[in-house]
């Protein structure tokens, strides 16, 4: 009985003390609130001591439209609405292109100071927003956040930003285009097209022609040219990556470099992580025998024969490689995917198939029912080490 009374007494005392502590904590979490600039509600401590209070009438300023490369600044006014001296210090900014200048001398109660925020428009076209934090000794808000925003307009524009061919069927010609535009000047010259990769440079044709402003994609453009690049038949299968360089008289872009992208593909192509188009090979690299290696590829068949094309394994060299053909999946009538799994099993003996003097790449041959392509070869570059 004594033990029970002791337990009851302890729980009662503990409960009362715990409750009292928690009540104080909860009370501390829920004191009166005050409204700060921007409508944020903050908690006021129960202290009666004098304190500084930073008040910003307009913590946000709209710079409007800015030309890229220019800088603008705004003076924010911070008033000390408290009853103790207010101290300010420049804090962090959202971007190092934002600067804030703050006087470090204390502001007397009722007095104001100006904080200058400057921003240089270095980003691309479109909206911007940057913030500058000012540290304070105001116990209610250790940081005041000042915001500037607006829109950046470049003096020039290239739209679309690249020349994309997407898929170019082997042996066929295909064109793509972009527009070079001047937003702030009426005279525009676009000349001297040069392609970066000399090995395929002659397989492209570049045409530059002026365009009426109503046909330009950006309504702010005052002058524009259409640049059309045509891929001529004869490009090798694989990825197309070139840069088209152009000379202009634009203030902010005397030299333009526009990427040209695409992929020359046949009716049957192989894709997947580790697949190198340049080598037409799966790059598995060095594999530990104790771990083995594995890759999932996709054989994609395009065109009218896509749905009727199936694959079968004809040969695998070295025979240690395990190859599995999955079920074809129709993505649309003219696009069918067939999974191809390649495995170097755990425990495979050491071997080198890295396409070096030490050994040729692994080689898989598949037969197809496609009337245009009877066989598909898949190389695998790998080496198995202990």
């Amino acid at each position, binding site marked *: 009985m004594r033990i029970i009374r*002791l*337990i009851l007494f*302890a*729980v*009662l*005392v*503990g*409960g009362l*003390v*715990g*409750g009292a*502590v*928690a*009540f104080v*904590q*909860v009370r501390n*979490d829920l004191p009166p609130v005050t409204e700060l600039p*921007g409508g944020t509600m903050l908690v006021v401590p129960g202290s009666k001591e004098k304190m500084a209070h930073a008040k910003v009438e307009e913590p946000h300023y709209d710079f409007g439209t800015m030309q890229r490369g220019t*800088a603008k600044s705004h003076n924010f006014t911070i008033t000390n609405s408290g009853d103790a001296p207010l101290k300010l210090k420049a804090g*962090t900014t959202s*971007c*190092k*292109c934002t600067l804030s200048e703050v006087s470090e001398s204390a502001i007397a109660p009722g007095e104001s100071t100006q904080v200058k925020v400057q921003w240089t428009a270095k980003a691309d076209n479109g*909206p*911007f*927003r*940057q*913030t500058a*934090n000012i540290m304070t000794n105001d116990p209610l808000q250790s*940081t005041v*956040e000042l915001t500037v925003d607006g829109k950046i307009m470049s003096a020039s524009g290239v*739209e*679309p930003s*690249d020349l*994309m061919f*997407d898929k170019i069927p082997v042996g066929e010609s295909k064109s793509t285009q972009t527009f070079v535009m001047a937003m702030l000047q009426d005279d525009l010259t676009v000349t001297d097209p040069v392609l970066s*990769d000399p090995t395929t440079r002659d397989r492209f044709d570049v045409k530059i022609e002026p365009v009426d402003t109503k046909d330009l*994609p950006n309504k702010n453009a005052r002058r524009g040219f259409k640049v059309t690049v045509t891929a001529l038949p004869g490009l090798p299968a694989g990825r197309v*990556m070139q*840069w088209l360089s152009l000379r202009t008289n634009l203030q902010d872009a005397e030299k333009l470099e526009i990427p040209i992208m695409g992929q020359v593909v046949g009716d049957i192509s192989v*894709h*997947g*992580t580790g697949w*190198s*188009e*340049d*080598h037409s090979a799966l*790059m598995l*690299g*060095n594999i530990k025998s104790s771990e083995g290696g594995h890759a*999932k590829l*996709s054989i*994609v068949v*395009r065109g009218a024969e896509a749905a009727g094309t199936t694959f079968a394994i004809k040969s695998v060299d070295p025979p240690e490689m395990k190859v599995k053909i999955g079920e074809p*999946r*129709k*993505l*649309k009538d003219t*696009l069918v*995917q067939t999974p191809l799994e390649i495995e170097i099993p755990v425990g495979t003996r050491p071997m080198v198939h890295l396409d070096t003097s030490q050994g040729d790449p692994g080689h898989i041959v598949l037969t197809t029912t496609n009337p245009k392509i009877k066989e598909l070869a898949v190389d695998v570059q790998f080496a198995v080490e202990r």
Partner: protein
Amino acid sequence: MHIRVMQRTNWWMIVSLASIGMVVIGSILRGADPPAPEKGLTAAAQSKVDAVEANGPIFVGWPKPDVALVFTGSMSGYLEPCGCAGLENQKGGLKRRFTFLEQLRKQGWPVIAMDGGSQERDTGVQAVLKVDFAYKALALMGYQVVGFGENDLKLDLLPIVLNLDPATNPLVSANVAIGDFKSGLTKRYKIITLGGQKIGATTVLGAKEVANLGTLNDFKLLPPRQALPEIVPDLKNAKCDHLVLLVNGTPDEAKQLAVTYKDFGFDWVLTTKGAEVPPKDPSKIDGTNAHLIEIGEKAEYAVVVGLYKGGNPSYRYQVVPLDHRFADAPEITKMQIEYQHSLENMGLNGLGLRTTPHPSGGKFAGTKTCEECHTHAAEVFDNTPHAKATETLISRTTPPRINDPECICCHVTGWEPQKQFPFETGYRSLKETPALVGNGCENCHGPAAKHADVENGLVKVNDAQKEQLRAALRLKIVENEGNKPGQVYDKGKVAQMCMQCHDLDNSPDFDFQKYWPKMKHVGKD
């Protein structure tokens, strides 16, 4: 003796039970407290920068929501922030995002994660690998909805999507399909019931972006205003508590779509093309009941909308800076290791990085060759981080980034730093081109092999030609040259050259006028 022991026991029992009572009663009374700590969910490793002080506390005063909608997007290839400037100064990265979501879930918050798309901004094989990484990471993080960006669709996405696990494939788009809308590789919308709330969500690629892409062989694209009427009635009929539209397009387009389809009652409309920094509060879209959400750029932030059924307020909104208060998730680090391993396997050739002649037509000699004559410059250079730039990629990064062209381009000699490809005779690998390690002299002065050969008497030229070769390598700093406001940037070449690597992403604190004195060197002595 026995009594004294009993007395000790009684006091021990009283203190113990009192403590238990304090904890129990205290916990009950404190039950209404917000579950999320103000000093960051958990602080990462000790750091000289206090993330909470620098970027603010989060979820202050939040009770646990019925459901938390977590919005991200516009990662633009930033799988991780560049560590060059110190990660504590940078925001973003999938490792931190993973930890953030995990911590919300561990606190019992029902989370629906949605991403507006634009995983990548570059082109090429590495960009494809990065999107593959991103999709796998988003699936691992339990994302329910992920949209497409224009640049995502310029890449060879088909094999990536084909390799996604159908059970966790998060791709949702009202107007983009892989193959066609029946292929099943993407969903047109999703309805998710969680925390007692029914959320309907879809994404669209903006009209301009669709027009820019034109016709794509492997995808079906529809203008958003053609696609949305085909699916929004289904969303409305599902009688969701909240409808979400993620627009991979401008704020103006997002607002216009909200107005056009206001009868369908979208509550939350996201734009991926707002300003770099999201606003502190969502903005109400005039003429609708919808709020516009901006998510910033480079996925440096996540935006969380906490929903409270019947609550007052009915929602709370928080911009979460993904800074180092969130520790690196080992799950994503493991993926990073695999990704770096893939880059190594592919090699520069496999990544499609073809060499291009240097614009000057010159060939690279290597820093040691320069140092044979320019001894004072060598003394200065060897004591700067430039000399150890390549070593840094091996010893100071986890995993090592020595095979990553995005890092190599500024950490070796003889690469184009912004377009990230090697010049002919530029660095290829530690084994093939050991003389081109470090961010060497020739990255600024230009390839100097011929100049060195002439000076060493290996090639005979006349005096004028010799001087011409020297002059071509000289750089002159113009008066007040620098990269800060009020300094001369456009008329000089030196600061511009530095900014090729010391850009705002990788070196936000770079100040040419402060940095130059640390590596000041003049000619030959």
